[in-house]
């Protein structure tokens, strides 16, 4: 065991960092797209179904198939990580989008009425009432998306984007279970950590009524 760690420890650390970096950037991109779009959908209801439907389609593409399809892209090589981030962002969109939309729609209509009656502008209503009240629901979406992303990011190694998946793929190729576990265990721990931390924040955001 200690021999194994001695041999692979540095590599595991580097790949874990890569993994966190891939998911982190993808999550930032996904949140940056999905939260504003989710808000926009609450103001343009008739787009809600098609847009959520599209995000749903992205979500159900099997990740291995997606990365497999990306393999023949000619300029893959050095841009693999960027491409992986785009793919991961696509996977993370749906939960954030859905929860942002549902969270804001779920705000008590009486409070929306009162916000309007108080003379709030659309922006004031959003920032002072809707977002604070929907925060825990939106965060729950971010949490689901993050956990999914940490998992899917292991597949990103298939196109040479790095991350802990690299160890898993090498392990599978060389029938080396130790190597597979060296990738899988830290990936699972990462997912658990992200879930726990975001869960705590989510709990704090819940508004008591």
């Amino acid at each position, binding site marked *: 065991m200690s021999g194994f760690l001695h041999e692979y420890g540095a590599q595991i650390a580097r790949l874990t960092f890569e993994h966190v970096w891939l998911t982190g950037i993808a999550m930032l991109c996904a949140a940056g797209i999905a939260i504003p779009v989710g808000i926009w959908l609450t103001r343009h209801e008739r787009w809600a179904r098609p847009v959520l439907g599209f995000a749903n389609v992205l979500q159900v593409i099997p990740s291995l198939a997606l990365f497999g399809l990306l393999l023949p892209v000619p300029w893959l090589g050095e841009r693999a990580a960027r491409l992986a981030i785009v793919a991961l962002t696509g996977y993370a969109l749906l939960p954030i989008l859905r929860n942002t939309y549902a969270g804001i729609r779920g705000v008590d209509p009486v409070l929306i*009425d*009162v916000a309007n*009656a*108080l*003379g709030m502008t659309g922006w004031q209503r959003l920032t*002072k009432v809707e977002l*604070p009240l929907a925060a825990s629901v939106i965060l729950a979406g971010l949490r689901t998306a993050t956990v999914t992303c940490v998992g899917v990011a292991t597949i990103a190694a298939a196109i040479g984007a790095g991350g802990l998946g690299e160890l898993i793929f090498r392990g599978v190729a060389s029938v080396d279970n130790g190597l597979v576990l060296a990738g899988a265990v830290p990936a699972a721990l990462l997912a658990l950590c992200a879930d726990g931390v975001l869960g705590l924040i989510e709990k704090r955001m819940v*508004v*008591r009524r």
Partner: protein
Amino acid sequence: MAAREVEFAQVSFTAPGGHCILREISLRAAAGTTTALLGRSGSGKTTLLRAVNGLVRPTAGRVLVRGRDVAAMDGKALVSLRRGVGYVIQETGLFPHMTLARNVGISLDLAGTDKGEAAALCLEMLALVELDASMATRYPWQLSGGQRQRAGLARALAAEPSVLLMDEPFGALDPITRAEMQTMLRPLLKRLGVTTILVTHDLDEALYLADRVVLLEQGSVVAEMAADEVLASANPAMQAYVAATTRVRDTGPGAPGILREPA
């Protein structure tokens, strides 16, 4: 002649489904007076009230507040109108994620008032509705129903509105708390000189708080008179309402406070 703070001119409202809720209502509320819109559930009184701050847009007719037509206002004008019109509802509508201080001070916050000034005014408002200053740091869920209702009133008054809209403000309170609130409110409205429109189905409340009483039935005004004329009114609709809601009265005509309505 007193200025007409709020005026309804031939106001009709038909719901999207085609159901007619208000039929050609014309009414005037003079500045500084309290008008009670009385009627049973579904008579259209809440819809009429909500036309004053533009939460409902009439399908025909005009609603004038200080001479300006609310129905013709664009978004910006509506925002500025609403900041001068207080709105108090049965559910209070206090924001659950804000302390009482923030709730009461929200209109000052929206107007960009200086923080220190806002905090001082906030305490003043709490005192006005007889809430202890220590309540300022509490959240709505930490308050009783009566305290929440007082806070809702304080919030509406903090903007120093010239018009105050109240929709069954004490409907969810027990009779004793309700009587306390009414006792507090009456002199307060007189002192502030705010033009108030009060929606209620409670005859005693209307008689105690209002100068004028308007009876609505199925979206039409069926009676309109000074509050002290109601009990002796010859208007058949008013007589019927009085008779129906005072069957078990035992506190004397026009008396405020504890009352019972037939279920």
